Structure formats: structure tokens, C-alpha cells
């Protein structure tokens, strides 16, 4: 500032706010033709100089000298409006949110730096010489204070519209010259900030924004987002995506600690990404305990300066459900035995199997009672739709010849949302004549047009790129170990050839046959309607059990994961959920329910109520209304309470004639220390506010300039001061330089 004033005599704001005029001219625009005349005179002076000695630069330099002299002679002035001392009000608004406690340099907090600077520069005293000062502190709310000693930097939010609204209310009729807004700039709670600023713009009240803090946080690691499943079956593995970033710690090793309700589950090492980039990792979290479990993810690294942004939670409702799977096998074979054995000790999966042991004889296993499957494969939707998954082994399409059973299987997936898996075998895929059946449309792969029996060949299973990252194929949480496990599996002994994967299909594994050609698809799936359809084109995975040590659990783990995954997305006839698992106090909670009958026909005329129970046991009943746009979809909205904790929702749906079902879900209300997320000084936002209102932005170390600058405001009570420009030092300096420059040039050309 001082340098500027040295050359230009006045502060920059004078030039910003001032209007140029000339005392000897009635209009400043007359200067232009006069300047042109001065240029013409310069050209005239060089008319006699021989061309070989003449340089256009000499003319330019001479002309510039004449123009400057003309400027000075015409007595230029800047007319700048200025307020009278103590004639108007200046509001000083100070941010007292928690982010002001951040120590950007690791030693001094922002609030300490601010108070020190205010003290050093006697900012308030200087301001009070010129204005009537009103002090306001704000965080999520704003209030008047009398002295800086009342400041307490403990607000949980920064809501910039709060002080603006307060000023509107309390100082709406007073002559307010400006507002000094001292903050680190991050607004995380305003709803209509631009509207609030508009009102001040209309009153032409400039904001002098002062940025506190560092525009870049050094040495901070932060968890940005945690995305996990809302529900899991007990004894499964939830895959949670954790996003994180860091500043000033790029490349360092950090640890993400995973806790379940405060109890350590596992640490996960990560490498921090470069500044400005987001790191992401998928963490396998075992879910063993039934109920609503809070899994927290905390990042730890040495030298981290802001610990408050290191942890985020994910609420997972762990169900001890028992989804039923119907497994139909067309012939006694080892694959059938070993699949059943693999999942036998899974407490949650119930597999009811129907084995055709001879042409007209069937062996049922895992059935709940003697009546189950006594009449064969279900012929009614309500019987089939009780299952969450269907597995077809080596069973030909013509087996299903009653009452459109094939269509029913497709509806099972499309409408009911069940999972479907076809295994390889002598009677599967094209070998089972499924081409040109409704099942073929559902599969993620095309079927060969002709009947093709399985290829008997040793074939090594290879994961595709997608398979390497898919949670279904995780036999280990560590990617390198996972690849090794898959690589060490014994080769399979057969596969059914299928066609290409369909556009919506995902191939998880292909084969490397020993003698056959190509890389046949071994494992693929696709979403189909509300459900999922999968193929595993071999019937010989039992070799993974018989050819590996009995303690090895790879085969068991693969089948448990596969079948759990198959049914994990199968909905219940009545379900309820919320749009998020975690809400801030006061945030809007959107509750939605899907309602269908036992054939999964979605109903729009059901009575749907939900009981909302808080952590202290208090409850209220909510009524959900049909959305009006989507069949079977019901909605309502509530405002999240201020009391933190886990909230239970239980929906009950019925029609006039029958009870449709109940379902439970949960969400949590938790105040997040948002002040510590993206906590760098947002100077851009402050510059924008200043610019929109006709003010200026100042870094904290320039706060002392404000009392001098803020007087230059055009108000009804301002007076206009004329500031002379003819004696501005820069003009004299330019004259000397230009004259010297011209003389040097003339000398070189032999003219001087």
C-alpha cells in the first residue's frame, strides 16, 4: 500500500472510487482530441528528419511526453465521495464458529491471529474515529456484542446470512456505510445467502471482507465420504467405500481404523493422495452382530492438524433373516453335493433343493416340512415368490412344462426382485435347450443357437478386471492375496459354451482352457428388472474342494458369498427406507416405503403407517401417502430432531382385507463437525461477496487499511473531495524516463 501511495500519492481505493475530471475542461472527454493534437505536434517536430535516421519510437516517446504534459497542465482531479467522520455506522461482523480455532500453522489459531491483529493495528479504535461501530458476532446465529472480550469461538456452523439478516432487522433504518465481515469464509449453513446479499446490494452497503486463515490447509487428512450398504445379512461382509483426501501429507501412509459401536474391528492402511485429489478404498467389514450397528471410519496420520474431520460413520442394519433359495438339480452329480455342503453351516441361508434322482423320482432336501415341494416345482406365483433365489442345475427347459413355469421364473426375477443362477451341466444353457425360451432373455449372456453339450477340458478360472474389484469375488480383503487365492485354485474340468455377454451383463470370470480355443465366460451376471440373473457355466467347481486341503475354505467361501449375493437384493413385499443413513439435526428426512402383496404386485391403495421411535424410546406414528407416480411407492417427510442417536422406523402396511407385512429400518441423527471439513479459507467466496456489494477483500494482515478505505463511500450524506493529480510522482518519473529515452534514441541516430 505504501509503495502504491509513494508512486500514486493516494490509496488505491481513491482511484477505484474516484471520478476523473479536469479543472480546465468542462468535460474530461475533451482531453482526447487535445491529446491527438499533441501527438500531431510530436509528428510535426520530426517532419524534417531524414527517413534513414527516423525511428517511429522517437515520435512515440515525444508524443507521450506531450500528452503527459498536457494532462498535467489541464489540472486533472479525482472527485471522490467520502463520509463525514462519525456520521454513519459501520458494522463489524466477526465469525465465531469452531473453524476459527484451527491452527493453520500448527501453533496459533485463527481466532488468536485475528485478535492479535486487531489489537496490534488498533483496528477498532481507528474505525471508531471515522464511524459509529457496531460489533456483531455470528456462527449459525448472529448477535450484537459490546466488546471483543465477549467473543467465544464455539459455533457449530457458519451461516453468513445470519449477520446479514440481523443487520437488516436492527440497522435497517440507520445510515450504514459498510460492513466489515471477518471470517474464514466457509458457509455451511445458509439457505438463501444470495437473497440476503441482494437486499444489501439494493441499499448499496459495501462489504469489506477480511479473510482469516490459510487458503490451503497444510497437514490435514480428512474422511470425505463413507458409502456402505444400508442392510446386510448377519455374518456377511459389507464392502464400504471410503473417500479421503489430504493437504500437505501427500504420499504418506495413514491408517483408517474401523470401529463397530466404538469397538475396534480392524485397521486399514492407505496411502494419502496428492493434494487436491481424492483417495478411495473399499474396506471389507465383517458384520456379525444383529441390529443397527454404527461403523465408524477414522483416518490417522502423524502431524494431522485437524482431528475433527477424521471420522465419519455408516449405519448398517444387520438382519438375521433367512432368505430361502430353491435349488433344482436335474441329475445326481458332485457339484450338487459340494454346493450344498459349502453352505450347510451358513446360519442364514436356507436352501431347499429338489433333486431329480431318476426319471420320475425326486429327492428333497432342506425342506421345512413334508408338504414343501411335494408337488414338484411351484406352479403358483405366491409359492415361488416365497423364495429369494432360484438355482437351476443341470435341468433341461422342458422340465418346466406346467402353467408357464418358465415365465414365472422370469417374473420371479423381474417383478419379485429375486436372484437367479444357472449352473453349467449336461442339461444347462443350450444343452438344456434354453435358447428361444423366456429364460434366455433373462440371462446375461447370449445362448448358442444349437444344442451344445459341455466341453470336457481342464480350464483355469481367470478373474476379469471387473471381477478383481467386485465384492462377490473377494476371497480376501487384500487385493494381492485375493488374486493369489484365485490363481491357486485347481482347474475346473468342464464348461458350457455360451455366446457373447449382453450389453447389460458383467463378466466376472473367464476361462483359460488347456486344449480348447477362446476364453469362455465362466461367471457373469446382470440386473434384470428388480432382480439379478447370473450364470456359472461350469459344473465342476467341486474340484476346488476335493483337490485342496480340507481346512481350506475357498470353495465354501465362494459359494456362501455367491448365494448371499444372489439374494441380498431381494426385497420383501413391504419395505421401508430413508434417503440417507445419517442426518444432521434439523435436516429433512425423506421416508419411503414399497408395498406389494404376496405375489409382489405393487399396490397403490394400501394403508401404510410407520412408527418412528427415538433413542429415548419416545415414538410417533407417521402416515405415508402414495407417491402418485410410482406403483407401490409411499412417502412422507419429517424433520430430524435435535436429539442425537439412532432412530427406528417400523412400517406396517395393510389393505382393507389383508395384512401385507411389516419391515424395520433405522437412521441416525448426528451432528457432524462440518466446520472442520473443507476448512480452508475461502477467499474466493469473500471476494465475490465484496465485489457483489461494491466492497473490497482484505487479507488479515491488511485489516488496518479498512478504516482509511471505508470512508470512500457514496452515500446521501457523503461530501465530494477533489484530489489533485497533476503532482502525482509517477507522472514526473514517466516524464524523465520518456525524455531520457528519446534523447538516447536520438543520440544513437546521430540527431542529438
Amino acid at each position, binding site marked *: 500500500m505504501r509503495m502504491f501511495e509513494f508512486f500514486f500519492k493516494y490509496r488505491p481505493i481513491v482511484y477505484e472510487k474516484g471520478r476523473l475530471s479536469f479543472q480546465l475542461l468542462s468535460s474530461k472527454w475533451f482531453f482526447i482530441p487535445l491529446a491527438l493534437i499533441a501527438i500531431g505536434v510530436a509528428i510535426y517536430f520530426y517532419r524534417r528528419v531524414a527517413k534513414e535516421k527516423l525511428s517511429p519510437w522517437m515520435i512515440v516517446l515525444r508524443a507521450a511526453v506531450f500528452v503527459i504534459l498536457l494532462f498535467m497542465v489541464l489540472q486533472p482531479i479525482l472527485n471522490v465521495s467520502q463520509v463525514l467522520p462519525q456520521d454513519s455506522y459501520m458494522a463489524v461482523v466477526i465469525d465465531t464458529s469452531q473453524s476459527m480455532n484451527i491452527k493453520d500453522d500448527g501453533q496459533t489459531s485463527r481466532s488468536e491471529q485475528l485478535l492479535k491483529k486487531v489489537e496490534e493495528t488498533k483496528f477498532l479504535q481507528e474505525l471508531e474515529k471515522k464511524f459509529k461501530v457496531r460489533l456483531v458476532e455470528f456462527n449459525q446465529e448472529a448477535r450484537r456484542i459490546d466488546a471483543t472480550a465477549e467473543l467465544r469461538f464455539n459455533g457449530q456452523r457458519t451461516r453468513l446470512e445470519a449477520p446479514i439478516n440481523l443487520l437488516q432487522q436492527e440497522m435497517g433504518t440507520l445510515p450504514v456505510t459498510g460492513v466489515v465481515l471477518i471470517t474464514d469464509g466457509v458457509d455451511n449453513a445458509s439457505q438463501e445467502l444470495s437473497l440476503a446479499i441482494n437486499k444489501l446490494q439494493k441499499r448499496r452497503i459495501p462489504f469489506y471482507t477480511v479473510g482469516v486463515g490459510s487458503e490451503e490447509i497444510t497437514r490435514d487428512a480428512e474422511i470425505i465420504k463413507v458409502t456402505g450398504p444400508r442392510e446386510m445379512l448377519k455374518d456377511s461382509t459389507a464392502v464400504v467405500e471410503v473417500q479421503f483426501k489430504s493437504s500437505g501429507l501427500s504420499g504418506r501412509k495413514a491408517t483408517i481404523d474401523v470401529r463397530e459401536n466404538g469397538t475396534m474391528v480392524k485397521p486399514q492402511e492407505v496411502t494419502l493422495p496428492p493434494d487436491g485429489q481424492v483417495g478411495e478404498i473399499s474396506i471389507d467389514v465383517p458384520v456379525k452382530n444383529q441390529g443397527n450397528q454404527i461403523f465408524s471410519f477414522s483416518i490417522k496420520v502423524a502431524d494431522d492438524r485437524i482431528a475433527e474431520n477424521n471420522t465419519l460413520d455408516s449405519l448398517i442394519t444387520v438382519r438375521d433373516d433367512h432368505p430361502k433359495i430353491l435349488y433344482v438339480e436335474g441329475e*445326481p452329480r458332485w457339484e450338487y453335493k459340494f454346493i450344498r455342503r459349502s453352505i450347510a453351516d451358513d446360519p442364514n441361508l436356507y436352501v431347499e433343493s429338489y433333486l431329480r434322482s431318476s426319471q420320475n423320482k425326486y429327492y428333497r432336501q432342506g425342506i421345512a416340512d413334508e408338504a414343501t415341494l411335494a408337488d414338484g416345482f411351484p406352479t403358483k406365483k405366491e409359492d415361488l415368490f416365497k423364495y429369494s433365489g432360484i438355482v437351476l442345475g443341470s435341468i433341461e427347459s422342458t422340465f418346466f412344462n406346467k402353467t408357464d413355469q418358465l415365465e414365472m421364473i422370469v417374473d420371479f426375477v423381474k417383478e419379485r426382485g429375486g436372484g437367479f443362477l444357472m449352473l453349467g451341466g449336461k442339461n444347462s444353457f443350450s444343452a438344456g435347450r434354453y435358447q428361444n425360451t423366456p429364460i434366455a432373455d433373462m440371462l446375461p449372456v447370449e445362448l448358442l443357437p444349437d444344442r451344445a453339450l459341455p466341453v470336457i477340458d481342464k480350464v483355469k478360472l481367470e478373474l476379469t478386471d471387473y471381477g478383481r474389484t467386485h465384492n462377490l469375488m473377494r476371497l480376501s480383503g487384500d487385493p494381492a492375496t485375493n488374486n493369489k487365492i484365485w490363481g491357486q485354485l485347481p482347474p475346473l474340468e468342464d464348461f458350457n459354451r455360451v455366446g457373447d455377454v449382453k450389453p447389460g451383463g458383467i463378466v466376472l470370470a473367464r476361462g483359460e482352457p488347456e486344449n480348447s480355443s477362446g476364453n469362455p465366460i465362466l461367471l457373469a451376471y446382470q440386473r434384470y428388472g428388480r432382480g439379478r440373473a447370473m450364470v456359472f457355466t461350469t459344473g465342476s467347481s467341486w474340484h476346488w474342494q476335493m483337490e485342496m486341503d480340507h481346512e481350506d475354505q475357498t470353495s465354501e467361501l465362494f459359494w456362501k458369498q455367491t448365494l448371499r449375493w444372489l439374494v441380498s437384493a431381494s426385497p420383501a413385499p413391504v419395505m421401508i427406507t430413508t434417503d440417507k443413513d445419517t442426518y444432521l439435526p434439523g435436516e429433512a428426512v425423506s421416508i419411503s416405503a414399497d408395498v406389494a402383496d404376496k405375489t409382489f404386485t405393487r399396490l397403490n391403495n394400501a394403508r401404510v403407517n410407520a412408527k418412528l421411535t427415538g433413542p429415548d424410546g419416545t415414538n410417533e406414528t407417521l402416515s405415508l401417502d402414495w407417491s402418485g407416480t410410482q406403483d407401490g411407492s409411499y412417502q412422507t417427510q419429517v424433520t430430524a430432531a435435535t436429539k442425537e442417536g439412532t432412530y427406528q422406523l417400523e412400517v406396517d402396511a395393510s389393505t382393507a382385507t389383508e395384512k401385507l407385512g411389516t419391515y424395520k429400518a433405522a437412521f441416525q441423527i448426528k451432528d457432524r463437525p462440518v466446520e472442520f471439513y473443507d476448512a480452508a479459507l475461502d477467499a474466493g467466496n469473500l471476494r465475490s461477496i465484496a465485489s457483489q456489494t461494491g466492497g473490497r477483500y482484505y487479507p488479515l494482515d491488511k485489516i488496518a487499511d479498512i478504516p482509511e478505505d471505508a470512508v470512500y463511500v457514496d452515500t446521501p450524506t457523503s461530501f465530494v473531495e477533489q484530489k489533485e493529480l497533476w503532482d502525482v510522482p509517477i507522472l514526473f518519473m514517466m516524464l524523465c524516463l520518456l525524455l531520457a529515452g528519446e534523447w538516447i534514441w536520438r543520440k544513437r541516430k546521430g540527431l542529438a
Partner: protein
Amino acid sequence: MMGPVAENPTSMKKWLLKIGSVLPVVLFVLAGFANTGSESTPEFFFTRLIYGNGGGPARTPRLDIRCADLAAGEGGTRYGGGWATDFPASDCKFMWGVERLTGVRVFDKGPHVVAAMDPELFNYPYLYIVEPSRMYLTSEEAKQIREYLDRGGFLHVDDFWGLRQRAVVEEELDKIFPDRKPVKLDLKHEVFHTFFDVDQVMQIPNVSNGCNGGRTWESADETEPMIFGISDDNNRLMVIITYNSDLGDAWEWMDNPCYPEMYSGQAYRMGINFILYAMSH
């Protein structure tokens, strides 16, 4: 003026003949490497365990026997007693019956044998041991069979009679499972109901006793037929033991007019139930 020189037609023909004779061979050989399965590609091999009797671990012999070569009514023991008792007639005839009565795709072209230490053991999850009182397992064989069973393999032990033979068999089984004892099975056990409903423990006599029509037992010190099982921790049968019965003979002599059908029928019913159990549990 000279015209174009014609190629020698004889050398062209020879060249074509060579190609034509080699090509089918090449195609045949290549095709053979990658087999497309047929309807009868077998799933189940009735696998007879080759055992020694104290001379060290047994080895899988190279045999070239086809079931189709069996003479009508042939039985007898081509290869002596011990592991080869009733071999190969009982294997072939049993498999023919399984194939006819069930949906199991059996290997019925010839008998199938394996020794305990043969790595191929683990490719065949069903094993049959006959006349186990003549068997002596080395410790490594016992360990291998235990591993086989722990992985999910199934074993049928058949054809031993009386207390003396029982003691020997128990000692051999003890080498495999020192921590698990054979338990007498109740007829309510699932293994008796997987395909047929077996409602009695019938004594299946050897061919001599069967054809004579007299006693069906072989050793007077204990004559009652019993079926024992050894189960895993999840209560699945790993080993089934037909004591004081000879299912092997019943399969072997099923087409001998003097051998009563009721014994063969029961032997087939039991054997098929065992196979279905092994392939579903």
C-alpha cells in the same frame, strides 16, 4: 514357338494324396484334445480302493478290462482275493443297475480302481473297500484316506464277518479316524431313504450260502448283520460299513439263477441309496 510347360500331373496327385492322408489324422488328433462331452460322459465312478496287506503302500495297477467283455453270468475272482474280491464282475454289474434305475451318469465301460496314495484319488469322491479284514493300511495311506474323507469323500466298507475280522477292520479304521468310532445306524437314518426306503437290515450272504439256501452268515461268533457309520462334525456320514453282509457278491452274482433275487435286490437298493447319499450330503 514353345508353348507353356504343363506341370507334371503325377507329382500333383501324389502331393494331394499326402495331404489327404495326413489331414484326417491331424484333425482327429486335434479334436480329441478338446472333447465335447456326450450324453454319457460319466459323472460317477464306482472306485475300488487298492490296498496292501503289509507290504507297504499299494499302487494303482494298470488294467485293461472292459465290462462288455464279461461273459454272461460271469463272476469269480480274476485277480484273487483281497481288494480284488468279486472284481470286476460286481463293479460292472452294479454300475449297470445304477445306470438303469437312477439318473446317475455312471462309468460303466470298465471297473475303476485307485490306490490311496494315487493323487487321482481326490477326483473320485466315492470309494469301495471289500474284504477289509485283509487290508493293512500304512500310516500315510490312513492319513490320505482321512484327508479324502474330510474333504467330502465317501467310503463304503463291505464284506467282513465275525468278531475276529471285525476287530481287524476296527483297527484299520482306527488308523484313519482314531477320534471317531463307527456307530450302528438306525433305519431312520437318511441314508436308508435317499432313493429307496430300506426298512430292514437284511443279511446279504456270499454266493455259496446264497445258493445253498441255508445259513446266510459266515462266522458263528457274531452272525447279526449290522450297518455302521462314521459321521463328521456336521453329522454327515463319511463311511458306511456293511458288516456281516456281502453286497459285492450280491451284485456279482445277480444274474446267477441260484442266487436269490431278494438279496441282489436288497444289495442294489442299499448300494444305490449309498451312492445317492454320497452325492447329496
